[in-house]
């Protein structure tokens, strides 16, 4: 037996997420230092801004509700082996669909109006992603590239609609009419943006967990994702599983977009969801496409983002710090296993009695 090295032991304790979080914190401290501020007090000021009192906490997490739904959607697709990178376009489409139903239909009975808006958004997102899934399942069109390109097509289409036929003439260009009050989720904590959408999102998160981990459809998706050949051999309809995984993924992204309109914005405008789709993809990746992991990372990202806002207010350090950190978190998480293997190997080579038994470097070994 080779002696487990210190690095390996520490690494195993820390886990992938812990390692990524530590790297991110260190980088944040370094970047703040580089800007000429005292790192720790600045971070604490940021955290106070994010989590200082109940209304701050509510604001921090209310912001992340649409993102969480979209990330859960992307994760559902990933589990089925469908890398839906088109979340951004689907979020936009869902937001526009919800804004149209909210503004042109109604006022209606509130619950009914909310339901119709969400339905329209999920149909819009689901149809787009489902269509891309169909192209993949039947024509072999790589969904990574097709969904990437669909982002630009869809965002441009939404921009056109918001500037043209659906434009609110009383406003500056690029914005649709305000939705009826009955299409807005009621605020549950006064003076915050925390709305009843919280309950919907929690229910959706629970549903996603059940769907992915316990349901028959989820089993089929996971089998298809893990090994399409095996899935086909045991009689799973692989094409059907691919299309439905994509459709569910897109529908959730659409609902995420709808929540942007129905909880805070009250209308569609051309910059409504910039970057949310990409954040959702990153969260799904770092959460290993597991609903629980995605939920935890989405919560962490909310705190990170709100803290970056707070840091910007206190010091003027740009709040884009949060995008830099989330990207570094992903890279650190992806590189962790390899890094530990390399470090452990180096330590084993340099010292210890088992020098003679040293293994060849893992470099160049392909998975």
């Amino acid at each position, binding site marked *: 037996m080779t002696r487990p090295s210190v690095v390996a032991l520490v690494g195993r304790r820390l886990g992938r997420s812990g390692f990524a979080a530590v790297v991110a914190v260190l980088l944040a401290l370094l970047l703040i230092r580089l*800007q000429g501020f005292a790192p720790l007090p600045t971070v604490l000021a940021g955290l106070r801004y994010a989590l200082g009192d109940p209304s701050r906490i509510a604001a921090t997490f209310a912001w992340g509700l649409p993102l969480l739904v979209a990330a859960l959607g992307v994760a559902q697709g*990933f*589990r089925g*082996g469908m*890398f839906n*990178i088109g979340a951004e376009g689907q979020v936009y489409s869902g937001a526009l669909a919800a804004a149209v139903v909210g503004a042109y239909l109604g006022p209606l009975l509130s619950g009914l109006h909310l339901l119709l808006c969400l339905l329209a958004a999920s149909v819009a997102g689901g149809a787009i992603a489902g269509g891309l899934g169909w*192209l993949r399942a039947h*024509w*072999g*069109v*790589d969904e*990574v*590239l*097709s969904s*990437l*390109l*669909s*982002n*630009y*097509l869809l965002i*441009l*289409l939404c*921009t*056109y609609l918001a*500037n*043209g036929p659906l434009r609110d003439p009383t406003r500056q260009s690029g914005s649709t009419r305000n939705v009826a009050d009955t299409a807005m989720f009621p605020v549950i904590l006064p003076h915050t943006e925390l709305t009843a959408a919280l309950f919907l999102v929690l229910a959706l998160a629970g549903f996603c967990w059940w769907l992915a981990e316990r349901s028959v459809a989820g089993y089929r998706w996971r089998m298809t*994702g*893990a090994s399409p050949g095996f899935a086909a051999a045991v009689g799973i309809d692989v094409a059907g599983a691919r299309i439905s995984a994509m459709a569910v993924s897109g529908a959730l992204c659409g609902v995420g977009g709808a929540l942007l309109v129905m909880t805070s914005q009250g209308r569609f405008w051309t910059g409504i969801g910039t*970057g949310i789709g*990409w*954040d959702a993809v*990153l969260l799904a*990746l770092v959460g*290993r*496409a597991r609903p629980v992991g995605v939920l935890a990372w989405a919560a962490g990202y909310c705190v990170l983002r709100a803290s970056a806002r707070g840091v910007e207010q206190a010091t003027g*350090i*740009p709040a*884009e*710090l*949060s*995008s*830099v950190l*989330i*990207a*570094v978190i*992903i*890279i650190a998480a*992806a*590189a962790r*296993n*390899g*890094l530990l*293997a*390399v470090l452990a190997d180096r330590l084993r080579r340099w010292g210890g009695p088992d020098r003679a038994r040293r293994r060849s470097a*893992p*470099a*160049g*070994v*392909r*998975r």
Partner: protein
Amino acid sequence: MTALEAFLASGIRFSTPILLAALGCLPTRWTRDLNVGLEGAMLFGAFFGVVTGYAAGSAGVAVLATAALGAALGVAFGALVTWLRASAFVVGTALNVLAGGLTVYLLRSWFGVKGAFSSPRIPALAAVELPGLSHLPLLGPVLSGQSPLTYAAWLLVGVLAWASRHTVLVRHLKAAGEHPEALRVAGGNVTRVRILAQAWCFTLCALAGLQLSLGQLTLFTEGMTSGLGFVALAVVIFCRGSAALLVAMSAAFGLASALSVRLDTAVLPPQFAQMLPYLVAFGGLVVLSRRSRVAESRILTPTLED
């Protein structure tokens, strides 16, 4: 200059960044580390081209510095995907977000501006007048007076086409992707070859971004690559390793972009015109997949179970 000449000239101008990025990406396809991070690498190149040009006041320095920076970034990326065994797909996706965030972060930290940065101190890449060609009808105005990177890109097409037939290096690159064991037995260093491919890719992508920020404009705007990196990725997937197809595809996208700029907004809303290159890419992808039915063109995605 007639309308046709202007259209063709701008078509060539628009195809340059796509061509450069696609030429850069091609070797990473050979080593099977094709990644979706071209967009981010281009954005970094566009940003640092402007920064170094602004600092040094010379476009030549900007080109050299940006190329060096791209190479360094490529080695880092290569080390991540080979040595540290990170998935090229995951790191590439993160790179796109990182580039979007970091360029804005640095733009605001260093220059205190949001959205766009322009200054008379930013040098433009000087247009090159080809002495023999300038007087010819049609050819002169179209081929002469382009940015030096445009000529470099077309030169590289020839170099790459020649190299892919006659050099050991390209054979090593292809072997690193198709049969790494064979390359190792033959005495090649798989890791080094894969890192080299990434360094080449990032260098050219950085120059492609620089062509956008210093060749076509002399300013940097947030997210100015707007999907061109993804279009280049589509080109690399379409071309199936053939340099001729790669050039034809890049030119098609360049012309589509030129058309979208020139279309009268009264005839077609600008958003539809802007869709053209992406529509061409999307349509091409569907047609190609339908006809070949080979899963070979798939982007390598990670397995999430582990």
